[in-house]
């Protein structure tokens, strides 16, 4: 959910763009972190862990803790809390460690 009216802040958002979450077309604003756009769409589970397959969301939002790793345009382990959203991006839930040579 997005804040539309705020007593102090006047949000200036980028251009509205479409991107893909696990193949499904969703909307966000250009330049905002991918995690913020997903959150606005109600998507909080970003990956499942290597050993115990536990769901993970973001934690720090400053690119520090590596909780939010996802596969973006085929590249695994992207910290989506600091990666800027662009039109047409393919964002996928990551399972496990991610393969460096991955053409999917």
């Amino acid at each position, binding site marked *: 959910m*997005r804040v539309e009216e705020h007593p102090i802040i006047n949000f200036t958002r980028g251009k509205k763009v479409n991107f893909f979450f696990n193949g499904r077309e969703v909307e966000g604003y250009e330049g905002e972190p991918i995690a*913020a756009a997903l959150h606005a769409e109600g998507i909080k*589970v970003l990956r499942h862990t290597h050993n115990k397959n536990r*769901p993970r969301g973001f934690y*720090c*939002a*400053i*690119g520090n803790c590596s909780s939010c790793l996802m596969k973006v345009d085929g590249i695994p382990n992207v910290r989506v809390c600091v990666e800027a959203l662009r039109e047409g991006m393919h964002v996928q839930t990551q399972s496990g460690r991610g393969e460096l040579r991955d053409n999917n």
Partner: protein
Amino acid sequence: MITTDIVVIGAGPAGLNAAITAASMGANVLLLERNVLEGGQLIKQTHKFFGSKAQHAAARGIDIAKALYQSASQYPNVTMKFGATVLGYYEDGVITAEHHESIITIKAKKYIVATGAAEKSLPFPNNDLPGIYGAGAVQTLTNVYGVLPGKKVLMIGSGNIGLIVSYQLLQAGVQVAGIVEAAPEIGGYLVHAAKIRRAGVPIYTSYTIKEAYGTEMVEGALIMQLDKNWQPLSGTEIDIPVDVVCIAVGLTPLTELLWQAGCKMKYVPQLGGHIPVRDENLTTTVSDIYVAGDVSGIEEASAAMVEGKLAGAAAASSLGYGSGKFAEIRREALAQLAELRSGPAGAKIRKGLKLLVG
């Protein structure tokens, strides 16, 4: 390879002030920041600052960030690179950074490390569920990007971050189910706590989070009371259904570069963990490296700004810039820091700094 007088790492309140001060004395400065936005954690601080006019008191953090950036931009001898993550410090005094997907190497005469801090986590069952976030992370999501973290939040920790973020969530239209504080007293300023209480949010002192529950995402948490020896009291559990739990239990300095550079570090719990040993001018034990702000010990942004000025002036002066200016800047900065750290609110900081020197 890029060469310059001074590299400042981090464009938060400390780093921006360091760059401005060093540049005003005539040094050439390169400011590197891993975020694409300037201002560090000021960019999400919608509340008005305390302190005195010298530290922008009564201004909001978001406006201070803009003002500092504009001030730094006015100096032709300041170059700023955003989206530039410093990767390493090498023995010959060279650093590498990743910028726009390429690696750059830089050699400066002096470095000012102002990398700030990261939020601590808290161990409890299911603390890894999506929906459990650092309070500062939720503040970024809500105040910078205008995205709500959920509908109902439980805040763990009643320090200033826990209190301020709770209030800002209310402002953004999110329900706050309560604030949980393990200590018998509220940690942050009472002026912030009073605002929260007036809004009808309960603050559970001498309570802790026992566990969170949920399958794919957090669905609630059990909190329980602590006795005067901080031991959980059975039978006191309260079940609080929420879709967000914010962890506001303090910050830890981001000191990786300092460790790597071989700076002597010391564990000072009052200042957030391992911090660099340094002299009064914020020079570390590696003489070409200065520190400023939270990386040198967790305090408020006001202190970070003053430390930035002091480190910037010290570094510039050591290179022969700003003839005579340093003594005055130093005197003023030390007086301001003493004032910011005075009184009961600064007791913990003073104790920590004493441990560092001793």
